[in-house]
């Protein structure tokens, strides 16, 4: 730790509780000038609350915040901004219908109390900030038309116009690709040279280890410790985060035991204009196939096509050797296909509905008893069976899905599909936004399913996840299959290289 440089921010013994839940319990954190720090913790560990306290949006119950040597008992959002703290939240808070230049300069215009807007001034401010981070962007472009990575840079530039001394980024890498992450990191390193500190909030451990100098770990609202990044490695950090030892072993495809003769699922020359082209692959019983490719490569569109939500132009799908006619998700479900969607909160769950209702929604027919009416006992029995099977932690089956953690929510989505007794299970981003411990638990569940003879497809851009849990993988780029191979034939670096290689 660079003890010689000055502390910019110091948070001392901060506690905060919400209705009956202790979100933060005497947590301390300090950031030096020009330092790149990481704050890590699982979902629900209190990271967001801590950021909000630093931003002055949430008032702590007790504790002290010292910025630039000034102590604040009650820090308000405006004080925090005046002292140079800028938070870039996950949603980025940009105005999609305004141009890049307007978005970057807006806060500055407000700060300068401009009543009449000078377009000249707006462009000057934006141009200056963008060139300082060595990026070229068309200032006249509307923000809704640019990539998420560029939106992020716009948000950073906007923060810089306000004389930021500390930029806090909340999970900035969840929605952007490898190359863009590298650029983001180079921007952060440049900021350091300008004496600007960065607090990087993430639970992607490899990134944390790559970018940071110092890591603050919190768990269940308590401080676990502050570590120099050079003393950490992946296993240590994940242990600190989860409090459990997590070992990653490779998935072992039990080909001999299951002796599959014909494929469960065969996709032949499936094409859809603008989505994917000439996709052919087979999935055998007990296999876990990984499909990887960057966001927008067509991987999700392909999965939707298999599930009757994106009608392909040509090509065939065979299930158990028979030509499948899938027009609606219902057809796919009846044929033994399940799909865990990419967006858990909008596509996977009925967030306001109870756990029980979320699980049985796929198997309503099986709940019917006399006079074709739903039997509530059957409903509870079915829901109970699956929550127990998957160890969902919840006070009761009547609890609404929104009160659960990400890991438990995902287990409910898995449960609702397992209830249909599928032969083939497609999981699109099964562990996105899920903490380390739950992640390994979900991987464990998936492997068990395969070992029992289910054919599984995992779609993911997390290379680790694909390599550890699949026996075969397919790389998709710009809608085409560029590679199909066994996972034990390829290393992480090799796969990364394949992914970033340009198609000729």
């Amino acid at each position, binding site marked *: 730790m660079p003890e010689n440089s000055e502390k910019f921010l110091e948070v001392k013994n901060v506690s905060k509780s*919400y*209705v009956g*839940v202790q*979100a933060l319990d005497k947590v301390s954190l300090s950031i030096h000038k020009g330092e790149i720090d990481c704050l890590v913790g699982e979902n*629900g560990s*209190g990271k*967001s*609350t801590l950021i909000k306290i630093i931003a002055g949006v949430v008032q702590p119950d007790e504790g002290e915040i010292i910025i630039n040597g000034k102590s604040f008992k009650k820090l308000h959002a405006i004080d925090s901004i005046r002292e140079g703290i800028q938070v870039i939240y996950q949603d980025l808070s940009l105005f999609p219908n305004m141009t890049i230049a307007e978005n970057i300069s807006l806060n500055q215009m407000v700060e300068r109390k401009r009543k009449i807007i000078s377009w000249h001034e707006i462009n000057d401010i934006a141009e200056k900030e963008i060139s300082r981070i060595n990026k070229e962007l068309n200032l006249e472009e509307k923000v809704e038309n640019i990539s998420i990575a560029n939106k992020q840079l716009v948000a950073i530039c906007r923060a810089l116009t306000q004389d930021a001394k500390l930029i806090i980024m909340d999970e900035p890498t969840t929605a952007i690709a490898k190359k863009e992450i590298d650029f983001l990191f180079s921007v952060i390193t440049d900021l350091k040279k300008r004496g600007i500190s960065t607090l990087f909030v993430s639970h992607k451990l490899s990134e944390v280890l790559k970018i940071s100098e110092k890591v603050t770990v919190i768990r269940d609202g308590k401080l676990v410790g502050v570590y120099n990044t050079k003393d950490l490695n992946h296993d240590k950090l994940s242990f600190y985060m989860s409090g459990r030892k997590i070992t990653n072993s490779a998935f072992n495809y039990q080909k001999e035991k299951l002796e599959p003769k014909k494929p469960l699922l065969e996709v032949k020359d499936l094409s859809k204009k603008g989505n994917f082209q000439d996709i052919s692959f087979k999935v055998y019983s007990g296999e876990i196939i990984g499909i990887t490719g960057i966001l927008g490569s067509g991987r999700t569109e392909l999965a939707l096509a298999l*599930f009757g*939500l994106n009608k392909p132009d040509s090509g065939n799908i065979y299930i158990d050797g028979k030509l499948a006619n899938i027009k*609606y*998700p*219902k057809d*796919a*479900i009846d044929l033994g296909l399940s*799909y865990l*969607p990419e967006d858990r909160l*909008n*596509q*996977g*769950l*009925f*967030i*306001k*509905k*109870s756990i029980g*209702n979320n699980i049985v*929604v*796929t198997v*309503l*027919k099986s*709940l*019917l008893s006399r006079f*074709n*009416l*739903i039997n509530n006992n059957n409903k509870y029995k079915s829901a109970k069976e699956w929550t127990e099977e998957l160890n969902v932690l919840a*006070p*009761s089956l*009547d*609890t*609404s899905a*929104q*009160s*659960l953690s990400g890991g438990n929510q995902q287990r409910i989505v898995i449960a*609702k599909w397992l209830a249909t007794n599928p032969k083939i299970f497609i999981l699109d981003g099964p562990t996105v936004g899920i903490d380390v411990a739950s992640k390994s638990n979900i991987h464990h569940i998936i492997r068990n399913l395969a070992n029992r003879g289910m054919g599984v497809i995992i779609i993911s851009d997390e290379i680790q996840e694909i390599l550890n849990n699949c026996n075969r993988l397919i790389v998709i780029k710009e809608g085409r299959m560029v590679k199909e191979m066994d996972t034990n034939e390829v290393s992480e670096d090799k796969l990364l290289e394949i992914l970033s290689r340009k198609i000729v």
Partner: protein
Amino acid sequence: MLGKYSKHSNIFTLFIIMISVFVIISIFLPNKFLTVRNFQSMFSQIPEFGLLAIAMMLAMLTGGIDLSVVATANLSGIVAALVLTKYNIFQTGGYEEIYTILLAITAALIVSLICGFLNGVLVAYVGVPAILATLGTMGLFTGISIIVTKGYGIVGFPGKFLYIGSGTVFLIPIPMIIFIICVLAIVIIINRTTFGFSVFMLGSNPIAARFSGIRNENILIKAYMVSGLFAGIASIIMISRVNSIRPGYGEVYLLQAILVCVLGGVDPSGGEGNLYGLIMGIFTLQILQSGFNILSFSPFFKKVIWGLILILVMVINFYREKESPKLLKKV
């Protein structure tokens, strides 16, 4: 657990409101409100308006709204009235009279189902927002009603038909019996059938419903058809009670139906709501209504009050939502 608790407390609050309204009006207007006659008149109005409220609730549960309920009821009522007055059955009576009445009822219900089907197709397949689709069909149905009747009322139905609206069985008005049967039917439909379950899930999150294998289009069309059917049943009670029908009859019910749904805890964004709340909403409104009648408020003034109550309830709901312990999930 919290969800369940708050649901119960909502119904409890509503119960308190209903009782308070009753008590207050009883105290201030004891001689006029607490009379057998007044209760009879209240109970005769509850069924037709309650059925329209149920029709509205169904559409709202799917996340939509059905602004055409009253127009549907009018059109169905006019079709029934035309059938009833087409044949000169007053002399014949007996067997043929029953036959004509059954024909009229069937025609009215079929028309109401067609109206609902049209709404459902517009919302489910054409993708028009329900508020616009049903605003359009409301105009359409009302327009047809006026063209068919040339704007005049149709008066004078067979005596046996009037029995539906004004007869009693063991002192219970027949409309009330029809209403109770309909409520029981809808309770079973929304709570115990796959259709009802799907309506709630679809209303809560249509995307997740689609991803779960629910055929959203089918469910929406069915929901709007059931909504139409209830409007049709309401129309039969309506025309037989007043022994006439004219286009535009019962327009005030539209605002009241929406008001009762919102008051009864039906979430205008879909997926939440139950019949206990709705029934209490219906009774509360009816008690207020009869209080206003006794005080001889003008219909315009009543409209102002209904509008104000609707806004007030929505504002209260907005703040309750804000206050509810949602914070838990964000910790």
